[in-house]
């Protein structure tokens, strides 16, 4: 009857109240909710009240191209990241720990290294006269430098590099949670490795792939730094366009309308992701 002592004193079971959350709630309300709502209001009040900012954004071919670029890059980055991350996560899930910890160390080092540092490295690596072009020319694969930077190719390479850890790490968790017995059973029943992969391993890891993929897609949509530095001015993406509208053009109405569209798409996809995996599992991934 070890629990009896506590049961007789229900006062001890009194839960902590909402009080502790008040400082956090105040901070977020005052310095997050209020500024963001105020910004979004500007999109329908400046320069004059109405929806003209949205009409401009949806009516102009230049902006349509930015939206198209953004979704194209986010889609390609997500697809490539998933395809590259899956085999790595698969190996990491079953590798001997000694070997695995080296790979994990490299992933963490890459992830924790300053974002600008990594992007700077890619700016140098991908130049016309950079190491990658020089090497490819030296071994005779190409005769003149490939255009790897100031276009969407550069943005994609840089973004895949940044997103890979965010895909690999949660996927390892998903794959580790799969019981190896299911695959042994498949092999015993005569399934070829290909069939076992297609009918068991892949379907069982699909929730992890979907959750990670959505996260990468959402992050890519709103990314600012890498597209700005690797994409050049003629291949602008949404986040860079928003920043430019505010910072250089001082067009708050149009900029906040574009910000609202980005916010809406992001939040819709986030809600979808929460339904797919549940809030707890997703936020526990860190």
């Amino acid at each position, binding site marked *: 009857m070890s629990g009896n002592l506590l049961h007789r*004193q229900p006062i001890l079971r009194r*839960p902590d*109240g*909402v009080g*502790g*959350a*008040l*400082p*956090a*709630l105040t*901070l*977020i309300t005052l*310095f*997050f*909710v*209020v500024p*963001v709502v*105020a*910004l979004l209001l500007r999109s329908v009040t400046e320069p004059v009240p109405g929806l003209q900012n949205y009409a401009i954004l949806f009516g102009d071919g230049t902006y349509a191209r930015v939206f198209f670029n953004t979704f194209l890059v986010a889609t390609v980055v997500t697809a490539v990241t998933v395809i590259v991350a899956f085999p*790595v996560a698969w*190996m990491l*899930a*079953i590798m001997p720990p000694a070997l695995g910890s*080296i*790979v994990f160390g490299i*992933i963490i*080092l*890459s992830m*924790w*290294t*300053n*974002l*600008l*540092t*990594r992007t*700077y*490295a890619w*700016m140098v690596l991908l*130049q016309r006269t*950079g190491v990658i072009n020089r090497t490819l020319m030296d071994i005779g694969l190409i005769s003149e430098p490939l255009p790897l930077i100031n276009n969407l190719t550069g943005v994609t390479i840089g973004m895949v*590099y940044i997103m*890979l850890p965010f895909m690999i790490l949660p996927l390892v968790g998903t*794959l580790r949670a*799969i019981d190896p017995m299911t*695959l042994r059973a498949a092999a015993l029943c005569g399934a070829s490795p290909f069939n076992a992969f297609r009918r068991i391993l892949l379907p069982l890891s699909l929730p992890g792939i979907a959750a990670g993929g959505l996260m990468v897609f959402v992050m890519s*949509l*709103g990314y*600012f730094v890498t597209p700005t530095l690797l994409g050049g001015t003629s291949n602008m993406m949404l*986040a860079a366009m*928003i*920043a430019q509208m505010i*910072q250089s053009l001082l067009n*708050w109405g149009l900029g*906040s309308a574009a*910000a609202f569209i*980005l*916010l809406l798409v*992001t939040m819709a996809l986030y809600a979808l992701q929460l339904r797919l995996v549940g809030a707890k599992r997703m*936020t526990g991934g*860190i």
Partner: protein
Amino acid sequence: MLLDYDRLGWLRAALLGFTGLVAAFLLLPVVFIVLLSFGSSRWLAFPPPGWTLKWYAELFADPAWLEAALTSARIATMVAILAVVIGLLASFALVRGQFRGRNTLRGLLLTPMVLPVVVFAIAIYAFFLRIGLGGTTAGFVIAHTVLALPFAIIPITAALEGFDKSIEDAAIVCGASPFEAKLRVTLPAIKIGIFSAAIFAFLASWDEVVVAIFMASPTLQTLPVKIWGSLRQDLSPVIAAASSLLVLLTLSLMIVTALIRRKLSK
């Protein structure tokens, strides 16, 4: 046998090879930047024609770099302390509180992590311009604390969920006040979560670029703003030297984290 490392056969060689390639891809920019910082070519030729320390000399000769690094360190330290304290208080309510809208509150407090930073950046920029906090240290700290708070709340709530509350109750039964029980029983038990929260919150501020670009003034620049400004001018090797020092810092942080985690979990 796809999940048996020892029975994968030829597939294992293929997957290991691929994993090796990806690891090399992830390591490439980091190693490259360090090598480049010692190369003597101003135009970043690689392999470098010779080796030199002059970019480091140039870096240390310019007080603006050191000042930016100190500004970053100062802001990130304040952010880490604030985010951990506010996050710790909030975590108790989120994990143990029984009130309506608890999950909504959790979602709200974690939203800054999901919202595209650029949206928050221009929103807080406009707001601070209006209330006179633009370009101030206080403004930086507040904005970064908002962004860092989710990174503090997640590890602390995770640690708190794994802690058996009846141990804290036992301390109270034995005569401790509720506050004392929390301070001397619960906090030591979740110290790894708190430590992770501090590291993540520090990094969230230290590495933050987008809000910082909008918030910075000519007299108040964080390190990412300084790097961003230099990058937009040219690809000077001095940036490679600064970057290498940041890589060194990351490595030391990883090692210290691993050591402290090992020590704390004993």
